[in-house]
């Protein structure tokens, strides 16, 4: 039996070149979904194969990799992907946002502002923002080609008519560089403002759907809205009970069987840094968030 020998970062060089070509095209046409010949990876589709292929193609031996899922370095899938790259590429890994050169993420943008020396790689389940309005790829590609985005505005308008608000809370559609409507992956709309004018290169990989797209550094990204119903970022009426942050995205944690709950930062690195910076590491007094 043949014993497999794997290349640096798992993928063979030919495949990496193919993916890099797709990435370059994606950067050249911000927000446009570039089809690529996505490979089968040793982790399941829907678990970050697109992001993993993008990361594998851009990673060099000197890179420092951070992997987060739900903002946290410790969630099972983030651990698994980080281990995959330390095994197949032998690169240095970190949990500190500011130390990383490549950050692969699922569902969040780190709270710590990114820099020009960083690349943020998103894992994308459904790259097509119009998919739930029109299931056919042939149709949605045509709609993008003609900038025919009326259907999306009708959907958002119907939300307002029915609920008084736009009832999309994550994967909130954006327009990139005034041309393509793009799905920012299922990040909470809280994170949407960070997409725009970001110094870091943002790459999006969808493995199962075989698409790569990109937001080049310092690109204007606008969350779709209406003049009389402007986009409102999600606000928590709570603060983190561990670090006291009021400006970060919070996870709600149920603390007992009676349904008591508390709020903590979703970005674990941000929370830890803040706590370390605090005097003697003393934790913020819990002021809010308890109750059934």
């Amino acid at each position, binding site marked *: *039996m043949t014993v*497999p020998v794997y*290349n640096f970062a798992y*993928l063979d060089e*030919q495949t990496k070149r193919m993916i890099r070509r797709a990435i370059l095209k994606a950067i050249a046409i911000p927000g446009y979904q570039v*089809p*690529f*010949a*996505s*490979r*089968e*990876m*040793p982790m*399941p*589709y*829907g*678990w970050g*194969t697109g992001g993993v292929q993008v990361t594998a193609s851009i990673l060099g031996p000197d890179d420092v990799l951070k992997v987060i*899922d*739900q903002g*946290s370095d*410790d*969630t*099972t*899938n983030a*651990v*698994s992907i980080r*281990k995959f790259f330390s095994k197949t590429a032998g690169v240095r890994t970190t949990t500190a946002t500011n130390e990383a050169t490549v950050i692969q993420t699922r*569902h*969040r943008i780190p709270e710590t502002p990114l820099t020009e020396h960083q690349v943020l790689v998103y894992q994308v*389940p459904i790259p097509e923002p119009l998919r739930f309005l029109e*299931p*056919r*790829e*042939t149709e949605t590609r045509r709609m993008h080609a003609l900038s025919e985005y009326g259907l999306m505005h009708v959907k958002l308008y119907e939300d307002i008519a029915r*609920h*008084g*608000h736009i*009832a999309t*809370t*994550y*994967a909130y559609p954006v327009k990139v560089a005034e041309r393509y409507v793009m799905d920012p992956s299922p990040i*909470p*709309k*809280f994170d949407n403002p960070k997409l725009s004018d970001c110094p870091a290169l943002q790459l999006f990989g969808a493995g*199962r759907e*075989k698409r790569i797209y990109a937001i080049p550094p310092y690109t204007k990204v606008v969350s779709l809205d209406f003049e009389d119903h402007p986009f409102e970022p*999600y606000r*928590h009426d709570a603060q983190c009970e*561990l670090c006291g942050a009021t400006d970060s*995205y919070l*996870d*709600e944690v149920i*603390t007992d069987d009676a349904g008591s709950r*508390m709020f*903590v930062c*979703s970005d*674990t690195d941000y*929370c830890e840094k803040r706590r370390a910076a605090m005097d003697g590491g003393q*934790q913020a007094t819990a002021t809010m968030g308890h109750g059934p």
Partner: protein
Amino acid sequence: MYVAVKGGERAIENAHALLADLRRGDRSVPELTLDQIEQQLALGVDRVMAEGSLYDRELAALAIKQARGDLIEAVFLLRAYRTTLPRFGVSEPMDTGAMAIRRRISAAFKDLPGGQVLGPTFDYTHRLLDHDLARGGEVPEAPTAPSEISSFRSVAELLANGGLIEEEAPGEGEVGDLTREPLSFPANRDVRLQNLARGDEGFLLALAYSTQRGYGRNHPFAGEIRYGEVEVEFFAEEVGFSVPLGAVALTECQSINQFTGSATQAPRFTRGYGLTFGQSERKAMAMALVDRALRARELGEETVAPAQDEEFVLSHSDNVQATGFVEHLKLPHYVDFQSELGLLRKLRAEFHARDAAGQDEAAMQDAAE
């Protein structure tokens, strides 16, 4: 005080250790060998090779062992390994007419040149649990007889002589490969067939069944089903001729379907085609039926049923993709769920506020009256 969940890494390692332990199971029971799987669970090995898109019985057996008998997981293992292999070329078209036949039947003709060769099949067995098999024991060798015929012409070829069935012209240009080029629509038949050949047996079976029950009805005959070994040849540029690489076992199904003709074409039979690695008649037949259903557009038939819908069929046939995405729901979604919770609370608060305001108003009206 709640502390954010740490130690995910150790938990994962322990879960994997537990999996390995359960995979081995009771240590007093002898461990399965790859030979046993390859020999005695041969049809499972065939399925894993077909859907894993890699012809290697030993690796498929290993995948089945590693996957604890979960065949889709085994397919996944084989696919992930396949990714790492270089593609050095495309073989010459295989001549299934020259197949070393182990089984060949036709439901369209009572007898035909070469005859009906039943071969190893579950057909006509009574599905009664065999308790002798549970006890084990010697199995006598199957009787054999010398064969007089070395090659069997396909039924479709026999029909083609009278112009009763459509001609299949060899395709032009390079054959597509959806592992190298992403699927785009409309897809050509070569890529459609590749997609179906790798597709999930259960999914294709259900689609084929749906066409028989009237969803895209197109009455098929099992023109021919054959199973056996076929030589694989590769054109080697360096030497200037084709060299044999070895033989693979294949199951081929050619379905014959009615076609009433059109303004420009006389009525004739059309074909659906199914081909799989190993012995898998269910898959090959289902594939042939779905292939024929997907030709609706090309043949100018009305496309109304799911099995005729190319985007629907080809986008959902791959079980590695399907299982990955369905099971990804196990991954944490705290962040998105939190956003939804926030919105729901807001909407509910507004609803109750409106409700309360409405009641106040009603009460005031009552008082006024």
